[in-house]
Every structure is written in C-alpha cells, then in structure tokens.
C-alpha cells in the first residue's frame, strides 16, 4: 500500500520518529501480523494508512480486519485458540474479561511508564489498561491509541448568530439558553438513543457527563467499580440531571417519545434542518461523520464543551472520553514492534492529518490535525484537569452494554430514576 | 314434474368444442344411462347437469325451471363420483351427514336420514369407520348413501362401479337397481362404460359419440335394432361382428355377397338405389351357431379358442376383416386351433348397414 504522505516532505509531521523506528525495527521482513478491530468503512481505510507506515518501516506484513460481529468474533477466536496477534478493543470491560481469562499478553511496566509520561492524564489511561490476569496479578495489557471525546455539544453557529444566542459557559447558562430557545418558539435539543441492538447507549454518555458535573471523580470511579450502588443518590441525581433535558417535552425535538426511538445517527441531522429541528446536540467527537456531507466543520457546524455548574467549582473541568486499546492476543516480535510503533508520534500524526482522530499523546504535533475543530478537541483532551473513561464501557458487559442501556430506555419511557437504578443494581448483583 | 330437459346444450373448453348440441327429455322417475366411448363427453354432460361445469350454450331445465345459472347445491341433485370422492377425514356417518349439517338440519333429522340410508345400503355396522378402513364396494355404497341422504330430485352417477372388482360390481349394481325401486319418483342419470350395467339398469340408454347423441332408446331396442354401425358395435360384448359386403339384390329381402364371394340373404328391405353399393353386414357373436348342414352363413379357420366354462369363444380368421370374427357358443366345445368351421345364424338376427353406417332396417 502506498504511504499517504511521503516521508520527509511535510514539516508538520515528526518524520524523525519514523526514521528512528525504521532503523530500530527494520528486521521483521515477511513476518505476518494480524490485527482485529472494530473499525470499518472509512475508519478502516484510515487505520490501514497508518498500518502502511509500519509495514513500510519494518517489512512486516501487517493485516487489519474487522467484522460486524466484532464482539462475538473476538470471544470465539480467543476461546477457540486462534486469536489475531493484536486485538483492538474499545471496551475496557471486554479487555478486563479477556485478561482474566488469560488470553492477553502483558505489555510490561516500561510501556505503562511511557504512557504515564507521554499521555495527557497518563495515570488514568494506565488504569484503563491494567487488569488482573489469569494468575490473579494485576498487569498492564491495553495500549490506548485513538481517543474519543464525549463532553461535547454540537451546534450550528449561523443559527446561533441569527437568533442571537451565545455559547454558554456554565451549566446554568446552558439551561437558561434552552429555556430561551423554547421561549423563541424553537426546540433546544436533539436527543436520539436509537442504535438497533445497542439502543440506549447515547444516554449513558449523558449520565456519565452529568455524573462528573455533579459528583467528584472519585465517586465516579466508585460508581464504575460498583463500590457505590447504582441507586445511590449520587447516581440517581445524575440520571435525573439527564432527565432535565431528555424528559422535558419542550426541550427535545419530537417530544420525549421520540428520544428512545430516534436513531443516534439520524439525530444530529436535526441541527441542519430548515427550520432547525433543534439547536444543540450532545454527542462524542465522532459525530461529524453523520452530518450531511456538505457541512464544513468550524463553519457550518461547531461544538462547545458541555459546561460545568458554576455552583460547583471544585469539580474543575472534567472531560469524559473513550478510546481504543491495543492488546496483544498472540505474542510475536512483530506484535511487540507494533506496540513500539504506536509510541512514535508519526503513528498518531498520519491519522490526525486525515480525519476523526484524537490523541492524548503529547509528543504528536498538534499542527498535524486536519482542522481546527479537531485541534481544539485534541487540546481539550491533553489539557483536561480530570479525564474519565466512559463508565459504561468499563462496567461488566452485561451492565455497561446491557442493563444500563435498558435502564436508560426505561427511564426515558417514564420510569422513576431510583427504580431504574435499582433494576440495574439488581442485574449487577446477579453477576456476582 | 321433476324431469330434466336439455335443449341444444353445448359445451366448449376455449376453442375445443366438446358437446355439439344435445337435445334430450328425461321424464320424472326415469332411469337414463349415458354410454359412449372414452372422451365422448359423458362426464361433461353429467357435470353440466350437476352444475359443476358451466353451460356454454343452450338451455337446461330441471323441474320446469331454467337452471343454467343455478349453483349445484340448489338444483336438487345428488351426485356419485367415479372415484367415490369421500371425505377421507370423516367417518362414514359424518360423510353422509355433511350435506345436511351444512344445510343446518336438526340433529334428529340428520340421524334419522343417515340411519335410514345406512340401513338400505347395509352400512350400519360401518358408520363409525373412516373411509380408508372400508373395502372398495363399501366405499362406493357410502358415496351412494351420501347422495341418498340429500333426498335429491335427480340422482347423478358417474361410472360409480368402474373401480370395483367383478364380484363387487355385480353386487353393487343390484343394489342400485333396488334403490331405484325404492325411490320411484327420483330421476336417475347414470354414466357408464359398461355394457352390462347399461343394459340391466336403464329405462332408456343414451349412446353418445364425439359430443353427439347417436341413439336413444330402451336397452333391448338398442341391442336388437341399432340405428347405426356405431351403436351396433358399441352395444353388446363381444362386439357385433361386422363384415364388409356388396349389395347384390334389393327388395323386401336383400342379398349381399361376402368378401369370399358367398351370398347371404338378409330379411331386411332395401331400395333399388342401394344395388351394387358396398354395405356392412353384422351378426352378433352370440347369435352364431355351428352350422350342421350346408345352409351356413360363412366358414373360417379357428385361430384362438377360449373356454370360459359356461361358454366358449372362438376367434375365426379368414374373412378379411381386420379383426377376427368371434363366435360365442354355449357350454364347452371341443375344437382345436386351425379347425375350419361353418357357422349359421337366425336370419331375423342379421343386421345390415349402408355405406354411411346407417341401418337399412326401418
């Protein structure tokens, strides 16, 4: 495969890191490396463009593949004993599970140390890659590469301009703005929880963001580890905070009934309708790929940070995010070398320069970002005072990708927040 | 008057004309049998009377009413199908009761009529069986019973016995004859291939051929005075022996000459115009006897002898007709293949047909 950017040409890339890596690992000629991950479509093309640099540098034959049945496939493959060399895993919960079952090769302390020094909120990132192995000892398994930023609110600047709205700086302002929009005869929010088999998950992002804006990061961590119950007042409070938006008929496009059934992929399109269906949309950094094709980021659409309560300054500016972890499911020199490759700035910059890639890696040049919007997000990620990983992704699969989703659907459907929390907690108890 | 009247009834399937104008009056209480070769339209005609087949042209009256557009169930008919057509999933009782249940008769009435019919047909012990547990003859009786229960004005039978073995056939035939006696006012129309059935059952026989009526009349009339060659050959088994002849002399009696040159005098009057024309001379196998003197009809070589016990069939060759001449002689006769024999017959029982196959007999 051709290299997207010819080495050495563009100064915004760290070409030196590429050359260094090449000289250190040029001895893998013909070795094969299989990678299996969740990226399909455009993401797959982009990742392949990154992989091409690895292949070119080492002479190895790295092949990436993916599948719609990604989650089943990795379970089947690891259990049956024919895993890929490297599995790219978006959910820490799944990573933990694979680790406990002994399917993962630890990455070693030196990688953990490297993350600590080179990633923004490095300590947190290490935590999300460290789990008990089959032997019961904690070890570092998951190398984070490619992050998503969740605490974002998307809007159309021209619509704001025309109506004279300002980007809110505090949560109080945000609520005031929402009321203002309602008063002007508009609808402030588009919320869509539909996602076929995964319906409900966008609500978990809302709740997590609210959790970080109403409770401390430590409470959040306890929630993730179920040290506090799901029906703890802190959690119920966060759910109800989400309810302020999602369960307010005046606030959401189509009314509350539409929330659960609108597809999350269709939902942001409401921003661009004429007249606009809504003015704001809370969603992670990947969402522009669902904007209509001709919308230019930064001009036709932009985002702002989901603000915090002015009344709770002690919580700082927490950032909710997610990321994919690279884990070695079948060890080989090429697999080790690939982890080394991920430590080079160039591995990040190639993707950054194309689209939809954020990295907490401080060594990657921010100039490489394809546009300002991405750059702004990247900076949010590297400068966040508190970074927390998506809670639902870290909870056990049955909860984070099951009971939590279902609970949120029930909640939007009118069920009491406390009862919903209780249900989820019951499911969690059932796992023990 | 519950007769059936057919006025110029026609039927075509698309382009194919099957019936070419049938005119027939059937009186109330009459037993009429349709016979004819396979494919001549017997079943079609019967099915048109029943209403299962639409009428392409002409008019049909039952009981004095035009019924062309009346659905089957309202024509007051009952039909017995060739293949029984019993409902395989119902018991004999239910098979017979079905029509009445559909008509919402009372339970008692149904029971009364089913039992009466079962009684007539000696089916009472089988009322609770499914058709598959019955023998062929019993099944056919159930089919008849089902028809009786409908208490029809007109009873239609389509070759009801053709699926039965010989013994059952005889027994069931007698049953039908008895039935007719018990229901003197019911008109019965019966289709068959079988000679014997037609002869024994019918008040009148209708001989059909290729969608046309060839002759209508009482059985013996058809046997003794067939109107044409077709009827002559069709009625009687084995069929009438037909020999090509040339008319030699006409008048009150007619002289004809056989292929081998021998002359025969037939006591049928012909007009002079017939002189010298070719004709067909017919004699029934059972009317032939072994000639004792010189006064014989014809002679021939025996090619096959079939001794059936009660009668003996001789197949005689050498009279140049494609088929052998058959003689049916009573008892067991001691002849061998290859014997040459002479035969004579009662002159009154000879038949003569013109070149078009119409009888010379008036």
């Amino acid at each position: 495969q051709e290299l997207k950017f010819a080495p050495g040409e563009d100064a915004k890339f760290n070409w030196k890191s590429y050359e260094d890596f090449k000289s250190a690992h040029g001895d893998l000629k013909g070795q094969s490396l299989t990678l299996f991950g969740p990226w399909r479509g455009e993401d797959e093309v982009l990742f392949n463009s990154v992989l091409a640099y690895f292949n070119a540098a080492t002479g190895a034959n790295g092949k990436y593949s993916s599948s719609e049945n990604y989650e089943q496939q990795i379970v089947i493959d690891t259990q049956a004993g024919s895993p890929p060399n490297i599995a790219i895993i978006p959910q820490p919960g799944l990573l933990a599970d694979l680790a406990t079952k002994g399917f993962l090769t630890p990455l070693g302390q030196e990688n953990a140390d490297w993350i600590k020094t080179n990633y923004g909120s490095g300590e947190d990132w290490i935590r999300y890659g460290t789990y008990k192995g089959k032997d019961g000892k904690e070890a570092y398994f998951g190398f984070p590469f490619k992050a998503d930023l969740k605490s974002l609110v998307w809007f159309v600047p021209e619509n704001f301009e025309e109506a004279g709205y300002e980007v809110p700086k505090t949560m109080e302002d945000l609520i005031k703005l929402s009321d203002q929009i309602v008063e002007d005869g508009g609808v402030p929010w588009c919320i869509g929880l539909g996602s076929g088999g995964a319906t409900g998950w966008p609500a978990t992002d809302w709740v997590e963001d609210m959790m970080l804006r109403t409770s401390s990061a430590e409470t959040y961590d306890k929630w993730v580890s179920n040290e506090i119950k799901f029906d703890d007042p802190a959690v119920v409070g966060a759910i109800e905070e989400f309810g302020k938006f999602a369960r307010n008929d005046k606030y959401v496009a189509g009314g509350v009934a539409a929330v659960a059934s609108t597809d999350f992929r269709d939902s942001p399109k409401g921003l661009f309708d004429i007249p606009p269906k809504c003015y704001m949309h809370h969603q992670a950094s990947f969402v522009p790929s669902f904007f209509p094709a001709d919308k230019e980021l930064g001009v036709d659409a932009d985002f702002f940070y989901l603000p915090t309560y002015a009344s709770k300054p002690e919580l700082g500016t927490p950032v909710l995010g997610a990321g994919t972890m690279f884990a070695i499911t079948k060890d080989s020199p090429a697999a080790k070398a690939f982890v080394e490759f991920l430590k080079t700035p160039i591995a990040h910059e190639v993707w950054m320069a194309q689209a939809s890639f954020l990295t907490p890696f401080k060594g990657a040049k921010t100039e490489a970002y394809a546009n300002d919007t991405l750059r702004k997000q990247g900076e949010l990620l590297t400068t966040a005072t508190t970074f927390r990983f998506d809670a639902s992704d870290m909870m056990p699969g049955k909860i984070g990708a099951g009971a939590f989703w279902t609970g949120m659907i029930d909640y939007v459907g009118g069920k009491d927040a406390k009862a919903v929390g209780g249900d989820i907690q019951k499911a969690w108890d059932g796992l023990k | 008057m519950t007769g059936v009247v057919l006025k110029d009834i026609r039927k075509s399937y698309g382009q194919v004309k099957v019936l070419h104008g049938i005119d027939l009056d059937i009186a109330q209480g009459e037993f009429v049998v349709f016979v004819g070769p396979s494919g001549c339209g017997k079943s079609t005609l019967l099915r048109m009377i029943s209403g299962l087949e639409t009428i392409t042209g002409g008019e049909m009256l039952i009981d004095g009413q035009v019924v062309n557009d009346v659905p089957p169930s309202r024509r007051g008919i009952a039909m017995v199908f060739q293949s029984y057509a019993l409902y395989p999933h119902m018991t004999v009782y239910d098979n017979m009761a079905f029509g009445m249940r559909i008509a919402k008769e009372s339970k008692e009435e149904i029971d009364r009529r089913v039992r009466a019919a079962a009684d007539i047909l000696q089916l009472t012990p089988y009322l609770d069986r499914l058709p598959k547990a019955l023998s062929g003859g019993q099944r056919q009786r159930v089919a008849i019973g089902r028809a009786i229960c409908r208490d029809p004005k007109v009873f239609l039978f389509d070759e009801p016995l053709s699926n039965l073995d010989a013994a059952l056939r005889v027994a069931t035939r007698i049953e039908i004859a008895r039935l007719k006696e018990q229901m003197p006012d019911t008109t019965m129309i019966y289709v068959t291939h079988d000679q014997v059935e037609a002869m024994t059952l019918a008040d009148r026989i209708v001989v059909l051929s290729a969608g046309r009526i060839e002759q209508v009349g009482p059985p013996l009339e058809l046997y003794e005075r067939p109107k044409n060659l077709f009827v002559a050959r069709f009625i009687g088994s084995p069929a009438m022996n037909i020999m090509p002849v040339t008319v030699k002399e006409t008048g009150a009696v007619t002289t004809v000459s056989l292929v081998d040159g021998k002359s025969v005098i037939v006591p049928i009057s012909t007009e002079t115009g017939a002189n010298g024309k070719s004709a067909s001379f017919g004699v029934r196998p059972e009317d032939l006897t072994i000639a004792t003197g010189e006064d014989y009809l014809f002679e021939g070589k025996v090619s096959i002898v079939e001794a059936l016990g009660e009668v003996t069939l001789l197949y005689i060759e050498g009279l140049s007709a494609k088929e052998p001449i058959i003689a049916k002689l009573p008892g067991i006769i001691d002849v061998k293949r290859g014997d040459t024999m002479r035969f004579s017959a009662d002159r009154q029982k000879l038949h003569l047909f013109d070149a078009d196959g119409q009888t010379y007999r008036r």
Partner: protein
Amino acid sequence: MLAQIASAMGVVVAGVFACALYYWLSDKLLSVALPVPEGDARKASANLNRRATIRPWLFLGPALLLLAVYLVYPVIATFILSFYDRSGGNFVGFANYRWAFFDAQFRQSIFNNILWLAVVPAACTFLGLVIAVLTDRIWWGNLAKSLIFMPMAISFVGASVIWKFIYEFRGGNETQIGLLNAIVRAIGGDPQVWISLPFWNNFFLMAILIWIQTGFAMVILSAALRGIPEETVEAAVIDGANGWQIFWKIMVPQIWGTIAVVWTTITILVLKVFDIVLTMTNGQWNTMVLANLMFDWMFRGGGDSGRSAVIALVIMAAVTPIMIWNIRQANRDMGDH
C-alpha cells in the same frame, strides 16, 4: 479477476466432486470387498445380503459424522459447560440453573418466546395456507407466489432496514419517514413508537418474521393442496358447502400432515430466531427472547459460557414434544414400507 474466478470454480468443482466420490468409491469398495461370484450362488447371495446390511451405514455415514461432530459434540460440550462458571474453568454444580430459575429477564424471555411460538407458526401457516389456496385459483398465481416468496431471499440485516422504514417514528409535527406512522397520521391518529409499545412491540417484531416465513409455508402447502382430490371439493360443492366451509372442513383436514410439518419447521425456526430481535431492539422494551438472551450471555462483555449453556439447553428442551411426535410419525411410516 479471471484467475480468481477460475480458481474458485476449480475449488467448487473439486469440493462437490470429492463428496460425490466418497459415495461412489465406498460403494465400489463394498462390491470389491464382498464380491458376487458367478458360479457360487450361495456365497453370492450371502455377500449380497452382507452388502445390504452395511450399505445403510455407508449412506448415512457422512450425515451422521457431520451431525455428530458439528451438532452432537457441541451439544454435549454445552451440557458440560452448563455446570461450570463463566470462564468454563470452575465447576459450580446447578448454580447456573438456579440463576436461570430466579432471573427476571429469563422469565421475561420465556414468556416472550411462548408468545412467539403461539403466534408466528400459526400465523405463517395460516397465511401461507390461505395464500396458497387463493393463488391456486387465479391465472397470475405464480407471479403472486414469487412476490410473497421474495422476502425469504432478503438477508436479516436487509429485512430490518426495510422494517425501519415501516416502524420509524418521528415526534411532533415532523414528517414521518415510517410508513405506519405516516398512515396513522394521514387518518388523523397520533404517531406511535411502535417498537417500544410495551407488550405489543413483540407483535411488531413478529410481523417481520411472519413476513419472511410465510413464503416458505405457502410454497410447501401449495404443493400439498395440489394433492387433494378435486372430487372431494366438488362433492362438497354439491353438498352445498360454501368456499369457507370447503376450506375448513374439506381441504384443511386432508393436508393436516403437511400443515404439521410446516408448523414444526417454523416452530423450530422461531426458537432459534434472534437476528430480528437483535437488530430491531436487542431485547429492550421487554422484547427479549431466549435465543437473544443466550447470545447476550455468550458474547457480551467476554461472555458467560455457563449461563448461556443453560439457556441453550432450555431452547433445545423446548423441542422435546416435537421430537416425540416425530418419532411416532416415523414409526408409523415404517409400517408402510
């Protein structure tokens, strides 16, 4: 490209050929091993009889082998796994069964499954029957059958997209892109979120499977209907039965055997169905069925092999009555041959 096609064709032909070769070779081998000498009549017939005892197993061999390896062995493995914990490493006795017994979601799934079993096979069979009867009577019946069969050819993913455009809900005064809601709106009703309407949403999911499977029932039943003797129907016409009565009292009872087979097949299919639920709701809004629950426990978040095994066994146990019925049927057939 040409080379790829050629090699693919080669592989296909070789594969099919190898399979056919087995039967041919094994039969040849049998005749060589047990020869039929011309002279020795006693030995010849003894060998022929021996061949006759061995041959059924040659014929059945590959099928039994495949069944044993691909189905029986996993079933046994599943059975064993049902006594182990989530990783399959530690014996836990009946804990998984106990869990299933008390699990609310499990109960919900059983309830929904019963609902599915009560509705879908009946609906498919009934609709298939009605359509088969009706289309047999019209000149464009074959075209109609093809149209109704078409959904069978659409993949489940395709099918769920299709139905998205039927059930989709848009709130407020927005234009509906789901047909059902557009119709409801057009006749003045309130649009509904069909797939989350409690209880009824099960039926909206079932509609999809019915839409797909009716073609199957129709094809098979239409073949059976042609076996009904025309005369029994005509006899009923003369007896005064109307179309409805003929259908119910004459035709249906006569093809009862085939109806049972269709019913069985669809019942089993329903027990296994999960693609539809997975893509439409993933069991949320109380639409969970056993197959989905099993899938969930097996794969979600790394999986729990013990509990999913228990659910799988419950699904398999559900066919026991059908199996017994079929053994009876098979034994009765034996009498015929």
